[in-house]
Structure formats: structure tokens, C-alpha cells
């Protein structure tokens, strides 16, 4: 075989290899995106009842709305740290509760409708 044909074939191989690599790389990105999406959906809270616990500090109590407003830390899998109002299952839970009390509380329900079911005072702030 003439040398220039060998060279041409060689270049063709290299070009095809590069093209193949580029295409494989291009396909990998949508696949990664798909995997991520899948993982996200699996990680997302399903519509089932959940029980979560958190700590926070009481900022306000609204008995008329059955509501306690709490500045709480991160609640893994539900929401980051923020100031947020939660309703309670029964009014007795916020009896004697003052603004500035540090509490540990349990949330139960189907997100996003979670209610405080238990609540213990830990100290003051």
C-alpha cells in the first residue's frame, strides 16, 4: 500500500476516535442530568406521613390561630434554618410557653401540612 494512503487511514482513525470520544462525552452529560433528576425525585419527600424533630427559639405565640412562630435550625430533608410559623395539634402544647424559650419539637404530617405534636422546653434565650 502506498504510504500516503496509510497516512490518510491513520488520520481517519484518529478523527473517528476523536469524534467518538466527543459524542460519548456529549451523551454523558444528558445521562448525568437524567441521573441527577432521578436521584432528586427519589430523594424528594413522597406524599407519606413524616416525623421530624428540630430545635428552635419561640418568637411569638398566636393562640387565636393555634400557631407558634419559631426560629429553628436546619430540618434535614424538609427546610433550612428560618423563622417560621407552625400550627400545633392541641392548645395545651403552648400553654406556659414564652417568647425566648428554647424548645425541642416534633413535627408530624404529610408535607407541607406538618403540625407540632410534641414540644419540650429546654431553656431560655
Amino acid at each position: 500500500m502506498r504510504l500516503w494512503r496509510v497516512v490518510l487511514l491513520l488520520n481517519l482513525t484518529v478523527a473517528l476516535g476523536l469524534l467518538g470520544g466527543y459524542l460519548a462525552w456529549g451523551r454523558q452529560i444528558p445521562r448525568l442530568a437524567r441521573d441527577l433528576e432521578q436521584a432528586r425525585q427519589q430523594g424528594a419527600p413522597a406524599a407519606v406521613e413524616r416525623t421530624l424533630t428540630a430545635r428552635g427559639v419561640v418568637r411569638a405565640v398566636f393562640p387565636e390561630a393555634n400557631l407558634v412562630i419559631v426560629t429553628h435550625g436546619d430540618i434535614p430533608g424538609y427546610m433550612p434554618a428560618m423563622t417560621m410559623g407552625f400550627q400545633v395539634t392541641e392548645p395545651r402544647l403552648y400553654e406556659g410557653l414564652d417568647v425566648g424559650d428554647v424548645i425541642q419539637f416534633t413535627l408530624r404530617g404529610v408535607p407541607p401540612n406538618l403540625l407540632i405534636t410534641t414540644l419540650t422546653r429546654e431553656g431560655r434565650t
Partner: protein
Amino acid sequence: MTALAIRWIHLAASLGLVGLITMTLLAGRSDRPTARQWDARVWRLAGWLVLLFALSGVALLAHQSALAAGRPGAAFDPAAWRRLLFETRFGAVWLIRHAVLLLLASLLLLRESERAPLDWMAWRVQAWMLAALAAGALAWAGHAVAVESAALAAPLLDTLHVLAAGTWLGALLPLALLLRAASAEAGADGRPFAVLAARRFSAVALGAMTLLVATGLWNAWVQVASIPALVGTRYGWLLLAKVALLAPVLALAVINRRRLIPSLSGDAAAVGRPAMTRLGRFLRWESGLAMVILGVTAALSLMAPARHETPWWPFSYRLSYEATAELPGVNARLLIGGQLAVLGLLGGIVGALLRSRRVLLLAAGAAAVVAGLWIALPPLAVDAYPTTYRRSPVPYQAASVTSGMALYGTHCATCHGASGRGDGPGGAGLPKLPADLTAPHTAQHTAGDLFWWLTRGITAAGMPAFGSQLAEEQRWDVINFLRALAAGAQARQLGPVVRTGAPQLVAPDFSFAVGPTPPRALRDLRGRSVVLLVLFSLPDSRLRLAELAAAYAELGFAGAEIIAIPMDGEREIIRRLGANRPPFLFPVVTDGAAEIVPTYALLAGEPRPLGQPPHLRHAELLIDRQGYVRGRWLPGTPGWEDLHALRGQIQTLARETPTSPPPDEHVH
């Protein structure tokens, strides 16, 4: 040292291959025995270079593998190699380069069958492309890839740099060999071929050299980025050494091009052959210098680029327009001197272009440039110290400022005064009055200058050295405090109406917690909200806080977060604030106030002796989304008691497009 040697050899082999093949392409085909002998010799050399490339490549892999695994035993561990090759960028680039090398090696074995011109050309161009690919890909595993601001351009330009270096420097030695063969008694038949090759090389080398210098300058700009980094880091020194080595190479190249190459075609016995011999010798010298340059380059590739290093300033002065612009006469001298230098430069260019009176014009131009710089630059000089460009390792944070404040009270206040005005009782008997640290000139000294004075003292002024009394971190704390002190003096000009234009006052970062929640940093709010910082004390502030609580939603809608900080630092402050309608829902800091309050009381502009409880009862500061303090209001003055006015200011800040970059966390 091993790493350097391996990289040096590898670099030289990669570039040498490119240059070798370039040179045979440039020389072209010839049937003369001398030319054919030279060609065969060059290709044997190419074979050796391929071998060297592969061997040093394997050594590089072994070395990198040991380095990555952190133990020398991993140098020949198959698992470590696999990880390095298939999971890192270094490995990917290595694989591609050596696969290409394999192709090149097999191509070299096919050499015997080249006969027709088309084959000759196809084979050599192919070999050149493979060699260029193997060498150029080097750039994709080096420092250039880490340049975030130009993720694609930096490695591409570095590839060009490598290829230009290969084309020019790598071709020197084969050309020198050809010239030596042709200038010998027996090589007379090859002389026309050698002359042609030298001429063609000269044209190509000019282009490659220009490209090399241009891409090199760009690389230096990106990797070094500043004059202090160039003259004050090891990377910068090596780079300067590289440039210094390049200068004689360029000088030789100029002589070759202007003198020797034209005389090659002169009378063979009297002019042509001596010129050829000398050209060959010069090319060998250049080649030797090029090897040294490659050694320096290999060393550079092993070092962290200067932009990541702390410069050590080697001169006792520096030139700064910022620090001297206010002095009388500086601007005038700068203007006159600058004009003169530009005129001189123009004269020099005209002189270089003209044929007549060239020497006169060049000399006059050079004189004008020197005189211009002589007039313009000396007024810009300010004192500098080895640490002038040192950057603080301790971020500008409230905790550091507060600790610096305490250290200041113990070590500095005796002379510099409780308020930093230089009026302490201990200062009276000193040779020079202690500096007023609240004066604006403190902004003209770099943090590194202050660090030097703190560490070594100022003997002439009677300032003692604190290098042995305070740990390095403590000295930086003091410097952070001085920055806040100077900022406090500036902050007095801030009012309730936000001024547009470049903001200056960086808000020291702090961390704060509300009750049991995890601590957050002011910095986390950057780019998201305007922050209204409320320093308050009870009971004075209660009414104001109630107003803010009522307007919280509205102000939040305008783009602000409120952070309320009790000045007494009480931990049960939320409880003391108690119930309110509407409730206080903004963060009220229960942890962190002890550091935030002293720092921000300075910025609130309270002139008071340090270390005493603040006179302030209530102050509010507005921090923009970039992290600069932009507004200040104290009760009793007109301004934000009208919440509509406050909301207006917040909206202005929330809507503005940032003109300054986000502030640096470190004093400088």
C-alpha cells in the same frame, strides 16, 4: 530534583520532536548525498527522542503517582496508576499524549517506503501533526488549565506557546547539524540545500519567536498578575531568569538573521563557508541556552504560580499613584514627565523606521524617555518594606477586630492614645510623636507596611518592635482593628442618605446565632439582601424595634434583612424583648454580640476612648448587597425615623447595579 530532571527531559524531548520534524519539512527533498545523510541522521535522532519521550513519560507517571498517593511506594503500584490514569485530568492528558506517541513511533518505522513526493509530504506532515499533538497537549495538564477567568483561552494560548517553542528552539540543533555537515570539505554538494533550509527556517523562526513572546507575555500576565509578584516571589524570579536567558538567544537570532544568513550566498570560499560555520556554531549556542530555558520552564511548572504566593518586596520604596496623588506637584510632574517619555518613545520608533539619522534619533528618543521617567517617577516613590505586599492571613472579621482592640489597649494605647489619635501619655517623650491612627493617611499604607512596623518597630521614631511579644496572628488582629478604626473615622461622613459612587467601607464579617440555631455569617447574605444592622439597647430602643417589627414585611419586600444586635450582649435578649404585636420576627442575635458590638460601634462613628462601654444607645447601619457599609443613622438626627425614607434607601441599594467588586476579606 528528580521531578525537575524528569520534566526537563520530557519537555526537551517533546519540543525537540516538533522542531526536528519542522526542520526536515522546511529543508525539503534533496537527492544530494550530504542532504540524505543529514536527513537519515535527523530521523535516527527523532527515534531516540521518541524513546526519551516515552521513558520520561513513564517516569513522570511514576513520580506523579507517588505524589498523588502521598507515599513513595505508590510509584509503581498498578492500582495507583489506574486511579491516576483514568480518574484525573493529568491521566487523561497523559494517555492521549502517549497514544499519539505510539502512532508516531509506528509511523517512524514505516519510513523506508517513502518514494513518491506525495508520500514524502504526507508522511512528514503526518509526523509533524502527531508530534505537535503530543507536545501541545502538555498545556492541558499544566497551570493554564487552572485559570478560571479564561478556562479555554489560557490552555489554548499555552498550546500555541509550546508549539512555537518547539518549532523555533527544537529546530535549532538539526539545522546546526546540517550546516556543520555542509560547511565541511566533503559536504560541498549539500550547500545550496543548507542555504535554502537556513533561509526558510529564518522566516519561520521569526513568526514562531513573535508568537512565543506574545503568548509568553500573556501567560506571565495571567500567572503572575502584578509587579510585586514578579519581583517578590520565587516563581517571579525564575520567570525573570527565563526572560534574561531569552535575551542572548534573541540577540544571537538577530545576528544570524541580519548578518549571517545574507552572507551565506556570498563568495563560497571567502564569505559563504565561514558564515555557514559561524551560523552553525551560533545555532548550537542558542540550542544550549534553549535547553537551560527549558530547565527553568520545567522548574516553573513544578511551582505554584506567583499569583498564589505572598510576595517579598525586595526594594526599599515602591511607586504608588494612589498614595501620592494628593501631594502638591505630583500630578504636574507626572504629566510633564509622561509626555516627555511618550515623545521619546515616538522619536525612537521613527528612528527605528528611518534609515538616515537613525542613531541620532534613537539616542535622542532614549534620552527623552529616561528624562521623562526621571521627572515623572521619583515623586511617586513611597517607602516600602519586605512585607509591604503581604496579604493578611486573618480575615477582616469582627472577632479579629475585637481581639485586636484588646491588644491595642494593652500594647499601643499608652503612646497612640486611647482613641488612637496619637495623644497617649507615653508618646510625649519620644523622638517623633506617635502617629494619629484615625487620620486618613493610614489608608495609604498597605497592611503589609503596618505589619512590618509592628513586627520590627520604627527605631527612629521610638516605636518598639512587637515581633517577639505578639504572635503573627495577633499582629494581624491589631492591623484589622486599625483598619476598622480608620473606617470609623471615614464612617462619620456617612449619613442616612445613601450616596452613589464607589463604596469604600467594607463591613467586617461576623457570625451570629439566634438561640439554638446554627451560627450564620453576614457574608452568607451577600448578593441576596441589603442588611439593616440595628445596634440596640433596652429600654431605649423598644419603640423603634416595634416600629421595625411592624415594617419588617414591607422592608423585606423592598430587599432588606434586619439583624438586631443587643449592645449589652445579653443572651436572654429575646425573652427580655418579650411578646409584641406584631412580634419581632427578625433575627435577634443571642450569640456573637460581644464581637459585633465593639466593631460596629466604631463604624457607627462613635468617638470614644476604646475599651469603655459605648455611649451609643442605638445605631442603624445599612450594608449593601456587595458587603459595603453605605448608610448610617443615629436616633435624634433626621433620617430613618421616617420608615418611608428608610424603605426608599433600601430600594435604592437593592436596585443598584454594583459598581465595585465584592470586598476582599483581607486588609491590603
